[in-house]
Each structure stands twice: as structure tokens, then as C-alpha cells.
């Protein structure tokens, strides 16, 4: 399969995602410039981490207007798997492709450390290869990862099982003591109603090899490979390129 990794001005984990997808997971990957208008026939799209446009206005606020985003939207509307990592997640929120918004970390400061997160649901293309409630050790590196959604919307998210990752203890317990940024309900990642668009603050692409401190992130990218194979075997023609 083929990953498209979108490069926004100010993206800084774009090559990390490209490297993990191509060199670690061993699939095809292509970096796609934000001014492009097509996704080069990719089967899955990654919006990478970084500081698009410096995050000078609000994280992701300006990037959502990039020409490529129209293609990403329609790709997602056709059911194509889209993963937003950190800044990519923030862009998906600003673009309205995922519900809610990010505010400053409750302790204000930028946080950079390895944290455990719990996989809440495995029925998304980016958790398909995970074990239920599997705990992944992934690095976070953000100043605005404090997820917010209005009460009704939050309730809806939970009801629809759209919370995909939650900050947790190494043993998988959830609670404020393991919440690094004040996110409501300890949310680290969510998906859309159709479950094909996933966003998370932690960086799976930066934890795909043991020497880097954790290889737990690999399964997130490996999942989409599996998901697409399952999809292909269930449906002859790949709908994402339809």
C-alpha cells in the first residue's frame, strides 16, 4: 500500500512519518506538498506533527486552508483512512474533520516525555492490529494538547465510542494522575463518526523502533496496512481510489 504524508510549511515530523511508514513498516510512502491538489494515489494519508505556519495563530488554524486539504477531505469522505498526529490532529480539528478543539496544556508548559496511552477501540484503520485495551508507550511533545469539547459533544463522543486513545498508567489505569495536559476525559486521540479519520497527540511515528525508546507506535501504522488488506479482501475494488 501507499502512504501520503502531507508537508505543510512548518511541519517537522513529516520525514519521521515518511521514514516510519517506508523504512520501518516497509510500505510505499510519498511526501506531498501542501500546495498540491492530489494525493498521488495514496491508500492512506498522514497529517504529520510540527508547527504548521508556526502555530502562530492557533494550532492548525491556517494549515486547514492549504490547497491539499480539499483532496484530504474528499479522500476521507470516500472512507479513506486519514491519521492526524499532534499538529496533524490539531489541523483535523480546525478543519472540522474531527470534533472539538485544543487549548493550552493545563500546566501551560510544553511537555516532552514518553507516556503510556490505552487503546480504547480497535475498530479503526489505525488500531485494527492492536489488542483491546492495549497500552502503548509513545512520546508526546506539545504545548497545546489539552483536548476540549462542549459537554454534549463530549458525551456524544463517548457514546459513539469515538475516543480511541486515552492517557493511562503503564498498567492501563486511567485517571487525572496520568493525564499530562488536562485533556477532558484523559483523551489522547479520537476518530470521526465514520471511524476512518483518527487524530492523536502522541507520536507513534517517533516510537516505531526499540533504540528510540519504544517500538509501540509501529502497530498504529501497521494497523492501516492490515485494515486495507481486510477491506480489499472483503471488497474487490479499493474504494479509496475509486
Amino acid at each position, binding site marked *: 500500500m501507499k502512504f501520503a504524508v502531507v508537508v505543510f510549511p512548518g511541519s517537522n515530523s513529516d520525514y519521521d512519518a515518511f521514514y516510519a511508514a517506508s523504512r520501518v513498516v516497509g510500505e510505499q510512502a510519498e511526501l506531498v506538498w501542501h500546495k498540491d491538489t492530489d494525493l498521488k494515489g495514496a491508500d492512506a494519508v498522514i497529517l504529520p506533527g510540527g508547527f504548521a505556519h508556526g502555530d502562530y495563530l492557533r494550532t492548525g488554524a*491556517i494549515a486547514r486552508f492549504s490547497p491539499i486539504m480539499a483532496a484530504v477531505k474528499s479522500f476521507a469522505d470516500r472512507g479513506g483512512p486519514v491519521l492526524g498526529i499532534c499538529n496533524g490532529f490539531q489541523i483535523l480539528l480546525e478543519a472540522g474533520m474531527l470534533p*472539538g*478543539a485544543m*487549548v493550552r*496544556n493545563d500546566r501551560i508548559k510544553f511537555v516532552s516525555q514518553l507516556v503510556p496511552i490505552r487503546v480504547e477501540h480497535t475498530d479503526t484503520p489505525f488500531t485494527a492490529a492492536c489488542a483491546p485495551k492495549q497500552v502503548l508507550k509513545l512520546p508526546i511533545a506539545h504545548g497545546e494538547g489539552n483536548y*476540549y469539547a462542549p459537554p454534549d459533544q463530549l458525551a456524544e463522543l463517548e457514546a459513539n465510542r469515538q475516543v480511541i486513545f486515552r492517557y493511562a498508567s503503564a498498567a492501563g489505569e486511567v485517571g487525572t494522575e496520568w493525564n499530562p495536559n488536562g485533556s477532558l476525559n484523559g483523551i489522547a486521540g479520537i476518530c470521526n463518526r465514520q471511524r476512518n479519520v483518527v487524530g492523536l497527540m502522541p507520536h507513534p511515528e517517533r516510537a516505531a523502533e526499540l533504540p528510540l525508546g519504544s517500538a509501540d507506535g509501529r502497530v498504529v501504522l501497521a494497523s492501516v496496512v492490515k485494515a486495507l488488506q481486510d477491506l480489499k479482501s472483503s471488497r474487490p475494488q479499493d474504494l479509496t481510489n475509486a
Partner: protein
Amino acid sequence: MKARVYVTLKPSVFDPQGRVVADALVTLGYQDVKDVRQGKFFEVELADADPAAAKERVTEMADKLLANPVIESYRVEVIQ
């Protein structure tokens, strides 16, 4: 022609920065500080001359880009 857009977090949204500032003020000895909310504003300079038109355009900018309706509300004010 100048306009200002004031953007604040909605009351329902927790404002960590305001909170930290409030705490700092109290520790500095300003016991009477009850609460602090932090906001931002943009001073937009336009070529356009007509106040009414300017207000409309700037409001549009705020809707589209300067504020995030999920968490923020804004106020537009034309200066001169």
C-alpha cells in the same frame, strides 16, 4: 482604516493561562484578585476606507480565521 478583533475563550472553557496569572498575582500579594481571563486581540490595518464595509470584512475574517467558534467568541471594533 484600523479595526480590532478581541478574541476570548468562551466562559465554559477552562483558561489555564488566566488561572496561572491569577495564582501568580495572588502569590505576589494581590489577595483581592478574584479571577483572571486571558484573551488576545488583532489590530488589522485595511486599505479600505469605509467603516461599515471594514467592520463587515473584518467580522468575516474573524469568523473564518481569527477565532475558533468551538472554544472562542470575538468582538470587532473599528477604530478609525
